[in-house]
């Protein structure tokens, strides 16, 4: 997100449209005034449903961004391409807890945070906040929602307006929502700054005079100004040094205790998640692959992606060099054209072979990777033969085909494949000698099609659901597969 956009967003969440009519403008500083009807609805729902009902409930949330969607593209007849940033995400956040949302860059975690706050309009799905659908609220209700749900952004350098003093920045949400009298607002700002660990004589300074950690404190003070119930923390410490990060994490924990806040913490840093969260959701390419209580998920991760993620983090101990690590190969695929079935299958070290196939896991992984490249037409056949084999009009002279297959085999696999697999694969490679990609594809698919590419496993229900075929049908545990049976 560009810095301008972020600033705009910050101001927007901090106080939606200005000039909104509020009923209790005489309410004292520290109490929030709301338009009465809606606030009643709010309190009654949360009170009636009790502790069981989640504060925030996200159901099948989708957010696509469209490419090639300008007027010119339409005139030229181009098909818009969907970038599926968030693709059917569901989770609940209960009052007083911290839910962590963790994943690599580009997996859609920040978009999820923004969309559930209605900073972005969703493509599909619904979000309930205290029982009310956020996307169907009218203007008054949205204003209330924005008072009770706030956000802290990642980059403390671009999310504060450089032309406003920090006093004004923190006061702005109070002004926009017309809370209290001028004096009361000022007093509240002082309170807030003190609470986040800044001194009140810094009120008239500008953001550039502060360090990163201090600016993040200002961002937190601004988010707290309206006494929200729920905070989305979007990578709140990833721009900070570790010693300052620790200060901010401690502060967030204190504030949660003091004000009974509910957090959605978005982060790529697993150790931060572990430290501060009660439950964790792991995201990969727009989907949640595993949700569970923090202890369980870290001590006994189920999804192969969660396992790999945990393995990859270098620990700051002297035993680190001797630790056994299994690192993931490859990159995250593009969300424009996500893999069919399970989205992690292109990198998964545990990808499941067809039931009746006798094959080593590693060999199967290699074959699947080669298949992926053939399906993406990601091999330049011209260069395979080098100088020796002529490659003209998309094919190799028939006499050279065996040599071509050998060279291509060598290029795709570290070691020659064992036994029958070599025959099957080489048959497909021979089809590539005529540039017959489709034939090669189907030859290989016939033999090696995995359940992981046919079906999306789905997340399922329960306290610790996991979206992986190894654990059977979503939520039921039926048809679970034991990895030991297939090698």
């Amino acid at each position, binding site marked *: 997100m560009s810095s301008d956009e972020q600033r705009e967003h910050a101001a927007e969440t901090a106080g939606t449209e200005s000039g909104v009519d509020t009923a209790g403008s005489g309410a004292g500083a520290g109490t929030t005034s709301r338009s009465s009807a809606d606030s009643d609805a709010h309190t009654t729902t949360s009170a009636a449903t009790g502790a069981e009902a989640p504060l925030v409930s996200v159901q099948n949330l989708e957010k696509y961004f469209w490419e090639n969607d300008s007027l010119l593209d339409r005139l030229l007849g181009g098909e818009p391409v969907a970038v599926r940033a968030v693709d059917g995400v569901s989770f609940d956040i209960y009052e007083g807890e911290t839910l962590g949302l963790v994943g690599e860059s580009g997996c859609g975690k920040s978009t999820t945070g923004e969309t559930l706050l209605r900073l972005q309009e969703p493509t599909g799905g619904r979000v309930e906040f205290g029982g009310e659908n956020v996307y169907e609220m009218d203007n008054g209700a949205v204003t209330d929602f924005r008072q009770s749900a706030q956000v802290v952004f990642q980059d403390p350098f671009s999310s504060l307006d450089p032309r406003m003093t920090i006093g004004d920045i923190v006061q702005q949400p109070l002004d926009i929502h017309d809370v209290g009298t001028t004096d009361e607002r000022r007093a509240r700002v002082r309170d807030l700054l003190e609470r986040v660990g*800044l001194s009140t004589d810094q009120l008239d300074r500008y953001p550039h005079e502060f360090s990163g950690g201090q600016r993040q404190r200002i961002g937190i003070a601004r988010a707290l100004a309206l006494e929200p119930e729920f905070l989305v923390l979007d990578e709140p410490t990833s721009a900070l040094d570790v010693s300052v990060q620790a200060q901010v*994490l401690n502060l967030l924990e204190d504030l949660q205790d003091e004000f009974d806040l509910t957090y959605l913490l978005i982060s790529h840093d697993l150790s931060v998640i572990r430290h501060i969260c009660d439950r964790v959701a792991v995201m990969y390419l727009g989907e949640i692959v595993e949700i569970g209580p923090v202890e369980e998920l870290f001590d006994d991760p189920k999804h192969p992606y969660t396992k790999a993620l945990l393995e990859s983090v270098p620990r700051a101990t*002297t035993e680190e060099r001797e630790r056994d690590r299994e690192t993931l190969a490859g990159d*995250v695929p593009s969300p424009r054209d996500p893999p069919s079935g399970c989205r992690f299958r292109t990198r998964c070290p545990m990808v499941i072979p067809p039931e009746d196939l006798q094959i080593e896991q590693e060999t199967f992984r290699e074959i699947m990777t080669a298949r992926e490249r053939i399906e993406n037409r990601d091999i330049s056949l011209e260069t395979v033969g080098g100088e020796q084999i002529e490659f003209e009009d998309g094919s190799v002279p028939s006499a050279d085909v065996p040599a071509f297959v050998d060279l291509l085999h060598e290029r795709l696999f570290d070691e020659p494949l064992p036994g029958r697999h070599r025959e099957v694969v080489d048959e497909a490679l021979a089809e590539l000698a005529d540039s017959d990609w489709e034939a090669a594809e189907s030859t290989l698919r016939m033999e090696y099609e995995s359940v992981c590419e046919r079906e999306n496993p789905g997340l399922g229900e329960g306290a610790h659901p996991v979206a992986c075929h190894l654990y059977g049908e979503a939520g039921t545990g039926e048809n679970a597969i034991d990895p030991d049976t297939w090698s």
Partner: protein
Amino acid sequence: MTEDIIRVEGLSTRFFTEQGQVNAVDDLDFRIERGEVFGIVGESGSGKSVTARSLMDLIESPGRITDGEIWFNDAELADSVAEGNEEAVDGDFVDLLSITEQQRTALRGTSFSMIFQDPESSFNPSLTVGEQLAEAVEVQQRASANPRSTKAKTQTADYSFGNYLLSTMLPSQRFVTDESRERAIELLELVGIPDPVERADEYPHEYSGGMLQRAMIAQALAGEPDVLVADEPTTALDVTIQAQILDLLDELQEENGMTILLITHNLGVVARMCDRVGVMYAGEIVERGTLEDVFDDHVHPYTEGLLGSIPDLASAGGRLQPIGGNVPSLLDHEMGDRCHFADRCPKAMDQCLEHPPEYAAAGSDDHTVRCVLAERSYDEQDSLPTGYFDETERPAGDKHEDPDRSAGEPPEERTQPQTTIDEVGGESR
């Protein structure tokens, strides 16, 4: 006994800014053994990137290396330099700061290479990756054809439209020969890029971040350097990709016996990669030693604070123990002649008002620490009164920087000069 490949003595790099003189690197000593991975760890603004750049001679105005010697162990180089410049040579060692600019330049790539933090901005977006790698190969070949000469640089290779047109017609005007292209592809393969033949013809934007970092490592390896300086090589990458890159560096180091100077803020990366470590703070190494010395037997309160700040991945721990305050500004007139950490130190004593020398500490022979606690234990009687630094040194500022600590914390401000350092050091994340 392994020999030293680099000895840095009394290195000072300063930046002369409008706000005053910034002592980014201050009287720094360290040595690196041949074939080891030496790590420098510290927060942003501690001077670690400037150290790396000083070694590569990449300091730009308003910065300057004002003092010190960088001794590089290379018998061949020593021979060629010895004539006419005896002072710069000491046995097999050559002082890189006393040789001529041309000799220095010729070392870049062949003896020293550097990889940077941000691979996206380190490549030219308008040339294919293969071409950029081949160019690096070409430069190295010319350098080795004319060792230590002024011709080491690409002299004709100005990228201009005219040259481009000429190159389409005259083979001699092409920037890269077929051989260097072949070599570029080999290098891409070496760093584990799948299908290097095709990838060589792609542009940087077609690469993912991890692949681009691999390509940058390939470029750095083009001249088969003795020393690889890696400045935050994985900071911009995701953890799964970071693990891949660290594995790659490990492999390359084992195979080629390369020496690596690793600059990072991530203690996990240090633990994963390094043999010896220096912890840097305010332009100095405050504690150094083997990995075990620094992680298990550390003496300096800063090292302790740094390690205490990391949330534990293995268990949901209690409260973190952060260091209060911020990294100091490094402005000369604000630094004073005391222990630079004293104002944030929970164990600051009267003695800390004098700048401490390096003391030997328990553990391996290499373990030294710039803190009086190596010599004596902490005694509350001698501790500085609460709020000592508030009145004496800085204007009133942020008294409540850290709510977890009593009001005795010093005010710190990180204003413009700090930004300058950040820019120079390129440490913003």
